């Protein structure tokens, strides 16, 4: 399995932000996207994950193969940690949540209401959800926000395990994950040029 993105142009608010993006990630590999704030990393990841349509270009894999994690973790405060994970496990039709709990050392917190967790613990719960999905492609946007160094190591370990199992990962992050095998790609060169102004057509420019 290989994730191939060819000539992808992504839009935010109807305006192209990145254009002609080409990238490929093969099974067992991870690709880290870099770039300054606001360049369109989130938009790119959302487009690849199938949450928004691309203006041009193709993504080789279907969205049914991907698990997406964004800035918000989708945690329900009144439910316990275990209940939150069990919900996603049954939605994705995977059975057990034990592996996910173990990977992010959430076992001691399993019976706690998620609303009482610290920001870092919530983030760990959000990342544990990725394990539960059982999907081969992880698309992750700033996964390490509010994690301490131990938790970042946990995360790197979880990604490594995922890759070893034949999965692949696409991440946008600023910090060094300690994932030495991951390739790094700067999305800066793909920044969309302002469209030329001529007589107006469908884009009103």
């Amino acid at each position: 399995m290989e994730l191939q993105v060819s000539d992808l142009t992504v839009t935010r608010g109807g305006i192209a932000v990145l254009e002609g993006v080409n990238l490929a990630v093969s099974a067992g590999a991870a690709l880290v996207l870099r770039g300054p704030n606001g360049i369109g990393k989130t938009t790119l990841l959302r487009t690849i994950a199938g949450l928004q349509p691309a203006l041009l270009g193709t993504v080789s894999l279907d969205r049914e193969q991907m698990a997406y994690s964004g800035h918000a973790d989708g945690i329900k405060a009144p439910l316990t940690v275990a209940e939150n994970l069990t919900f996603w496990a049954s939605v994705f039709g995977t059975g057990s949540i034990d592996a996910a709990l173990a990977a992010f050392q959430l076992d001691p917190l399993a019976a706690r209401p998620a609303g009482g967790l610290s920001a870092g613990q919530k983030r760990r719960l959000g990342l544990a959800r990725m394990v539960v999905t059982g999907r081969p492609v992880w698309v992750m946007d700033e996964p390490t926000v509010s994690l301490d160094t131990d938790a970042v190591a946990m995360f790197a370990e979880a990604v490594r395990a995922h890759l070893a199992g034949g999965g692949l990962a696409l991440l946008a992050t600023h910090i060094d994950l300690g994932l030495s095998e991951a390739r790094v790609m700067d999305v800066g060169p793909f920044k969309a040029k302002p469209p030329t102004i001529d007589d107006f057509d469908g884009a009103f420019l």
Partner: protein
Amino acid sequence: MSSIWEYANPKKFIATTNRLLPWVTGLAVVLMAVGLVWGFFFTPDDFRQGSTVKIIYIHVPAAMMAINTWAMMLVTSLVWIVRRHHVSALAARAAAPIGAVMTVIALATGAIWGQPMWGTWWEWDPRLTSFLILFLFYLGYIALWSAIEEDDTAADLTSILCLVGSVFAILSRYAVNFWNQGLHQGSSVLRAGALMGDTEERVSNVFATPLFISMAGFVMLFIALVFLRTQTEIRARRMRALLARERMQ
């Protein structure tokens, strides 16, 4: 002249409507003036309704345009959904306030006519009630357009609302008919009301010609306003696009 879809290009639309606009406006002014002056000054009073019959020259065309505007919005919304022509979505947006004003006129003239006829400003007559509901639909549609910042999102959502709303508007029309018939069956006042705004056979010939001229005038007025307001929406949209592009640099 290859196909009608060429006019979906904003620039082409503006150029074409600019050429047509003076003619349409002139026609609207002439037809409305003739229809209304003829109706107001040179038609006899009705033997039952007296001079209030003169209100039909405004009430009937306004009511017709209130419904036709929604129908036009439905068509342009469908065109947007199916063919993604921006001008079509913007035309629907431009038309909505016109339809709302026409609905208000139909309601106001209906109420003013009802005061001497029914002895009350407001009667929950099925026809008037349906127009009140139609007005609520216009309000919701306009409010949704102005609440959403992103243009294409707004166009998509309002189009779907227009589609769903159309079905519910027709449903409401039947529901309201059923509901009022249940309340006062066979009231003679309501049968007298059927003369107002009913099909042309019932309105005798003396009233028919100026009424048709006035209706044609209202149609022309509508077309002129839609042209002008759609141009405005296109320009506003282009301005937003230019400003957004400026921010990119």
